[in-house]
């Protein structure tokens, strides 16, 4: 574990951020056998990468700890109730256009088009079309993929700012709606795992939005 205040290379930071997005995305996947264990292992890897020095670490730890302690069946059921689809739809789906959009104003299409444009520009395509493009899981995975490209750019001395600009566009939008989702979930969650997950997502996205802006400022200064 990194304990000193030693510096990180740009690539290390991008890899850490990539891993954080992947870990959080795992929380929004449908419940599966061994899913919680994978998250716990992922968290251990993140701790080894120096997660502890960041302010959002506490929120991530709270989520992973809640997930590890929770009754798996109850947590899975709650996830389906809140995030999955039922007779009347999910209670609070983690989908951008359902949280901040207006269906009649065509917001779902607008959100999807924006994300599709972003993906095309970055050279990505969705492999699982069953997820709406503006589902938080997809947005987190996309952010993770962009961070990976950024890390590769740092490692090959290429221009990382191009990827940071794209991350800013994506994460800026996430920072505008994920905190609201966390508040909604907090009011409706009966188990607590999803409250901790959405709170950790909100804390991380807000933090990362600031980090991306600061990195871009450093590049231009």
């Amino acid at each position, binding site marked *: *574990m990194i*304990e000193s*205040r*030693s*510096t*990180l*290379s*740009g690539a290390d*930071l991008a890899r850490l951020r990539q891993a954080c997005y992947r870990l959080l995305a795992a929380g929004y996947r449908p419940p599966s056998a061994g899913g919680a264990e994978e998250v716990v292992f992922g968290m251990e890897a993140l701790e080894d990468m120096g997660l*502890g*020095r*960041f*302010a*959002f*670490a*506490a*929120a991530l*730890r709270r989520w992973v700890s809640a997930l590890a302690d929770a009754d798996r069946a109850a947590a899975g059921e709650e996830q389906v109730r809140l995030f999955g689809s039922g007779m009347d739809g999910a209670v609070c789906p983690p989908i951008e256009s359902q949280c901040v959009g207006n269906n009649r104003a065509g917001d779902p299409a607008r959100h999807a088009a924006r994300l599709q444009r972003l993906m095309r520009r970055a050279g990505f395509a969705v492999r699982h079309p069953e997820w709406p493009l503006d589902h938080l899981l997809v947005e987190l995975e996309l952010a993770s993929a962009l961070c990976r490209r950024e890390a590769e750019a740092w490692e090959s001395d290429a221009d990382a700012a191009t990827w940071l600009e794209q991350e800013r566009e994506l994460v800026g939008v996430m920072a505008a709606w994920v*905190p609201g989702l966390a508040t909604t979930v907090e009011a409706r969650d009966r188990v607590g795992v999803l409250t901790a997950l959405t709170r950790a997502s*909100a*804390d991380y996205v*807000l*933090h990362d939005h*600031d*980090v991306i*802006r*600061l*990195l871009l400022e*450093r590049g231009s*200064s």
Partner: protein
Amino acid sequence: MTWVVCSDRFDWGAIDTAVETHTEWCRNPVLPDDCSDLEGLAGCAEDLDLDLVAHRHRIAGIDPFGTPIVALDRVDRQSPRRVRTRLKAASSRAVHYRGVAAGNVKTILPRVRSRRSFLTIGGPAYRVVPDADPARCRATDGCTICVDACPHGALEWTSGVIRKDRLACEACGRCVAACPADAMVHPTFTPDQLHAEMLALARCCTEPFGVALNCSRGEPTAQAEGWFTLQVPCVGMVPPHWMIALLLYGAAAVVVPGCSCGVEADAEERIEATVDLARRWLASAGVDRGRERLARRTAPFPPGPLPPVEPPRPLFGACGAADVATMLGGIGVDDGAAPLGLVTISERCTGCGTCATACPTGALVSHTVDGGLSLMFDPARCPGCGRCVARCPEDGSISVRRTVQPVELGAGTRAVATHRLALCVGCGNAIATQTALDRIAVPLAGDVSVLKRVTSLCIECRRTTMVF
């Protein structure tokens, strides 16, 4: 509960507080394995690296802003009693810490100083910044007082919500002092925390003591014996009633030095104006030697401090100005920067109630009682922001004077305008105030049928009833 302390420069044997001493702790601020029993940390002001302490907290999984950290300077270390008082004050303050949300944390990355530092990123540091509590914020009603108060353009009103740019925020705290609803929260400088710290100081000090304000963003300043530092976000944000409140809590004198952080260019000018207003306020209440009680630099205490009070609620919150004025009494003082306002309503008022809707604190409320409409005004809740004047559709019918008037505060809530309600001839419900109907009768005088319809029927009945 135990304090973890540095024993390099102070003999902790003279303190009757549970401490765990460490040599050279300031240079290597290790935390105990089990922090559940940790009351706070104390080290030497010369060596303590607060960013490193915060970093160690995060590694240990502890909120670094929740642990009281006392940096003892040379003057502190000369007196065990003084050290005990400082520990007690810090501990009391920490009891009221309620945690920091992600919206309150500003990330800082070290500056690029070299080619190497451009390619690497030092460990991030974090600063606590204020953020709006949506449960209390009146932005939905159009209130933008905090936005107007921010000198850095970090706040923005968008569709009834205050949006904050954390990176632009310099945590000067002016939005906190300006918000009349206590909605702008700085988690490490809440009214409850300052209240608890002042109460603890007053209880621990058996001799007269003074309080020196200090910018938390600037360098800590060592104080002379008998003086204690009260950290505020910036001295430039301190409103006049905070300065007087410190005297009411029991301080024999308050030192309001210049701004030591120097982030906002107009801080000195504001401090000068605020101290001047606070001194005039003291003079109006018959408190003598105001210049010495609110001094600009440390000096001997003036004799005969104000009788100390233990306010039941913090004097640093939204109601603080009214509480201070009531406790202090006197004839009051008029000033454009006074923390309270007094509303006057003229004959031109039509009783439309727009002012009550615009008021961010509920100081103006419209009530319908016994066939009449009353505009009730509570002077203790009026921050003198002038939203009511800006929104009033009748020019000159409402005015606000920034003033502190203990007599008016003592009178409490009262009706500042009353209007008779005109009733619908169809259903008997209220149409509007008679004054409003009289006003529209003038432009409609040429069209008698419309005038009769509008002035005798309510909106509902106009759809179904004909009037001839």
